[in-house]
């Protein structure tokens, strides 16, 4: 499997063989702005898959139970619940409209029959409870079957209501609303491993919340300069460590990552560790800073590593080594010579996300032309795949794609200038335990599964 970034050998052994499983969303060419998917997230078990869109809606898919007669065909994801999480708001004080677009969704670990998730737009975070109702009480004394109140004087006998089964109903209700704590746009939320607190980060500040308390939050990072004229750097992403509840990281627009320990002080403006790779002088350009800006940071499941995504690459860092990453994977190096055009059309500011697989042996991130890239860290192989309706036959294997960077274009290759920069894959998610991936391509959600086992 050869990718644009490096060589490879034919598939075999432990290699993934990705097959199309499902695609969700409208087929029309005309994409409604509100339907554009803005976040994708599996829950802790992988049975639920949530998406948020620009219209402020959340759609949750649930994996069907496996069919015993066809053990090789895994459960499909079908719509479980749909609800309007955020509405457009108007800030009267500043005369500003607040977008309803869902920036991030994060699930809480499941503690009872109900499911909880946090969803956020630019300003407000909400805790949603998604619960099932499959029983209904019948035989009330004070009201009729259709709900009308009965006249108490007409009641001559008392009965005990009984529970009867009903069609499954999935209800989503907002349990907490965490508002008015962010002056700037929220870019990240992250649930702590203590399952009691979470952080929210905007361009200049990071706040710590308790899930039960909505009327106050603690500010733990503040990089706003006293004089805004001196502003040269913003926070781009933040995440809690998966196991150490006192540790979190945040990335910046200058390509740096700071690791902070909340035990050291209340305000974590001084970092415990500072991760930055020195700039390569040979590739310096006017756009060096923009392309070094980190758009996503994710800890590995093990907690030993973290991964950062900048415009052209994905880097894996060992938390014990601050001066350079342990791995650098090129996502679409062929764009380096096009940076000027990409600056002109603003594509250079696109924020791509990245994700780990359950065992931390592979990482995935998106690119343009509905391509996405997967890097096998152990085998040191990478592959470019495409999410498109043309490759959407059930259980059809995905063919690796290749971008031609110059000279004669081979058959089945696509030249850099033919790439569609409107078709960007910014959001991807990997099932926490199995080889199932969800890829958001504008308004469509693609689900791919690994053929093996």
């Amino acid at each position, binding site marked *: 499997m050869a990718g644009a970034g490096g060589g490879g050998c034919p598939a075999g052994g432990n290699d993934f063989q990705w097959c199309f499983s499902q695609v969700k969303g409208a087929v029309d060419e005309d994409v409604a702005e509100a339907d554009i998917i803005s976040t994708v997230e599996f829950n802790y078990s992988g049975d639920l898959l949530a998406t948020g869109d620009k219209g402020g809606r959340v759609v949750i898919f649930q994996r069907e139970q496996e069919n015993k007669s066809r053990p090789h065909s895994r459960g499909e994801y079908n719509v479980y619940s749909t609800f309007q999480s955020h509405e457009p708001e108007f800030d009267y004080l500043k005369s500003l409209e607040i977008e309803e677009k869902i920036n991030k969704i994060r699930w809480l670990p499941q503690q009872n029959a109900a499911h909880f998730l946090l969803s956020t737009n630019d300003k407000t975070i909400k805790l949603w409870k998604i619960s099932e109702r499959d029983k209904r009480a019948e035989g009330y004394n004070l009201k009729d079957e259709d709900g009308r109140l009965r006249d108490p004087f007409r009641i001559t006998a008392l009965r005990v209501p009984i529970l009867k089964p009903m069609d499954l109903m999935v209800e989503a209700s907002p349990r907490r609303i965490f508002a008015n704590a962010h002056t700037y746009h929220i870019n990240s939320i992250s649930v702590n491993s203590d399952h009691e607190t979470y952080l929210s980060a905007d361009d200049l500040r990071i706040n710590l919340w308790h899930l039960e308390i909505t009327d106050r939050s603690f500010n733990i990072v503040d990089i706003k300069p006293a004089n805004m004229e001196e502003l040269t750097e913003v926070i781009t992403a933040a995440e809690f460590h998966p196991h150490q509840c006192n540790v979190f990281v945040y990335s910046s*627009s200058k390509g740096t990552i700071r690791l902070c320990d909340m035990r050291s002080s209340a305000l974590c403006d001084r970092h415990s560790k500072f991760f930055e790779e020195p700039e390569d002088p040979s590739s310096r350009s006017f756009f060096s800073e923009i392309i070094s800006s980190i758009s996503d940071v994710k800890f590995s499941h093990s907690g030993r590593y973290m991964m950062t995504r900048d415009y052209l690459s994905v880097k894996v860092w060992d938390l014990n080594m601050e001066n350079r990453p342990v791995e650098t994977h090129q996502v679409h190096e062929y764009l380096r010579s096009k940076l000027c055009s990409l600056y002109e059309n603003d594509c250079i500011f696109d924020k791509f996300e990245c994700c780990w697989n359950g065992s931390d042996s592979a990482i995935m991130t998106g690119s343009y032309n509905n391509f996405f890239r997967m890097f096998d860290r152990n085998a040191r192989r990478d592959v470019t795949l495409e999410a498109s309706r043309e490759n959407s036959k059930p259980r059809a294997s995905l063919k690796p794609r290749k971008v031609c960077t110059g000279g004669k274009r081979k058959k089945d290759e696509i030249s850099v200038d033919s790439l569609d920069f409107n078709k960007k894959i910014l959001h991807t998610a990997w099932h926490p335990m199995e080889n199932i991936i969800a890829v958001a391509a504008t308004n469509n959600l693609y689900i791919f599964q690994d053929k093996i086992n």
Partner: protein
Amino acid sequence: MLSKGLKRKREEEEEETLGVDAWWLDPGHPAVTQAPPTVASSSLFDLSVLKLHHSLRQSEPDLRHLVLVVNTLRRIQASMAPTVTLPPAPSPPVVPSVTDNLLASSDAMLSASMASLLEDLSHIEGLSQAPQPLADEGPPGRPVGGAPPSLGALDLLGPATGCLLDDGLEGLFEDIDTSMYDSELWVPASEGLKPGPEDGPDKEGAPDLDEAELDYLMDVLVGTQALERPPGPGR
């Protein structure tokens, strides 16, 4: 050219490995070898200034986008004329608070006024050569002299305009409707507080005001008291 939404047809003979717009970055390109390096940088400079304008015009600018564009502008500016340095122009106190408001509170009214101001400035001089009278400025995109070390988003434009006018940016405000300055955020340092109309002539023409009235007047001027109909004769 790679622009948003345009899918180029597959062309087998496509030789260009660079986008059309990036020709100036290709050292092998004949135009680049002949043209002075400032030409390429100045086009990028203009593009960046346009982006900055556009960003500042938003009611709530995307801070990340703004900061990245400003930093890129600084890089370009620094590379264009590294040897020439401008004497630091006196920054009117108004400018930092404007920037602060823009970036912090996104006051829509202020943004609108600053946006129109930026528009006027760009028509005036193309944001290039600094110490030059308005009359003979060259075409837009002329390389800018070295910038003073710390620059805010608007400071990039501030020193240049400051040099155009003797009294700095405030001169530009003279013929602008000043009712927008009556809000608390916009107190220009040089003007001080405006005394009430009836107080002025009376103050001068009535030297025998008693102390209580003077105290009252001082309180009104300092703003600790709301204006009431003052007691006493002659008003």
